[in-house]
């Protein structure tokens, strides 16, 4: 039976991706508010 070898870096990489997603989520609202309050740049 082949034993499952854990990939130590995989979960860390996944967490880094979710951190990037959090950054993306944090950028959406300010952009929307900026356009809503002041229009185009």
């Amino acid at each position, binding site marked *: 039976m082949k034993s499952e070898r854990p990939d130590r*870096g995989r979960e860390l990489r996944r967490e880094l991706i979710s*951190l990037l997603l959090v950054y993306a989520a*944090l950028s959406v609202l300010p952009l929307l508010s900026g356009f809503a309050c002041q229009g185009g*740049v």
Partner: protein
Amino acid sequence: MSRLRQIRALLTAWLTIDFFGKSRRLGKRGSGTLTTSVFTQGSLSYGFALLNFPPEQSPTLFAAGTLAMVGGFTMLAMLGELQDQLGHAADRDLVLASPITKASFFLARGLHVCLFLVIFNVGLAIPPALLSIWTTGRVWAPVPYIGLSIVFAATLTCAFQIPVVLAQRLRGQDFAASLAALLRALLTGGVFLGLLIGLRTMISGPNVFPGGMAAVEWLPPYWFAEVFESVCGGPAASARGLWLTLAIPPLVGISLLLVALLPDRSHSSRRSGKAHAWWMHHPVPLTRPEHGLFVLVVRMLARERSFRLRALPLLGLPAAIVAMGLAGGIAEDQLPYFLAVVHILPLAYLPFLLAFLPYAEGFQASWLIEANLGDPAGTYRRAVATAFAVLMVPVQAILFGIDVWQRGPIDAAITTAIALGVTWAVLPHLVRQIHTTCFSLDPEEFAIPPGLGGLAGLGMVLTVTAIAIEALPGLARTAAAIALVVFGIATLSRPARRLA
């Protein structure tokens, strides 16, 4: 193992601890903890930036206020992180016993601190950085904003780390940890105060800031904001702002490095030499085991790392509220009630401090006490009540000083006596929430005790009582103070009822 692989291994291990924290330490798989806090603090930063985003806002003030907020929050997170790193004995032993060269270790640690700062700071800086597109009219404004905010947060962190490292070199790790906890308490209160004052300044203009525009211009966030403005095509930064922004970060960095290079003069075996400190002399009759635990509790409150890190910073918030109230100017007729509440605040906060008492990093040593006492929790209850009753005296003495400054000695003495009497009378009841041996649980498994809501309600009742007593006429108030002090001492001195 090559140096690069050593550094990579250390970085991966530390980042895994940062991201997965508690769940990994317990050997479980779980979702990240750092990502969640980046998201919540980033949302807070967005709310703060949006509140200061009216069309007529001065771009420099907007940048200065948000930079101060981002820098302050990042610094608070970093100071906690720097204290936690290598604080766990198991981690320290594992890292220091592994075949890693000194240079790799310091390089990895430096890289990790920088990475953590950038990860946290970027999350906080994104919302104001994007809003600054509209305040400056430049699409690329977020890039210099985020860059400057990272430099600003790093400078702030280094500046506050200097006294901690200096204390560690001269007086040892214990003293440094106490100083760091005190600094964090002051900073938590300071950041809270700064948020309120900064918000008011950004909305109503610099005239409402204590000291006016001249004071704002002397604060580091303003220099960074000026540089940011001139980078984005605004008016050129003043020579002072430009030079200070360029000179201070390297200066602070070099100072920290120099302090860190000082030889370590502390010795773990050195004893304080004070066999009988002032707090050991109290009139409460205690049995020998109770007295032993009383001494242990007072010493542990000062020395226990998990207590210092978690419980003491909580005290920053009430301190900030008191400072703000006194600085804001309170009407003459309301001052006695405000001071009555200030005197009762330490007692109202006690249940939260008591919630941290069952935890200690050396929790496995609690068998020593459990094996020797018939009712360890009961003995502890009396020891803890006496410890806090004694420690409340210097706390009330400080408040007495503030009170004398505000009202004069006689009123201050009466209110202080009332607060002490109430505290001593209530303490034996408050400590009933202690059901386990103190310092016997792992701080990693901290859980909020179930009855804390009710005890917080008790804090409200006590506050109302203090105000009611303050409203009594002079003679009745003096009589109440004497009666409460006598009743308090009698309650404390009564032998504890043993649990069946």
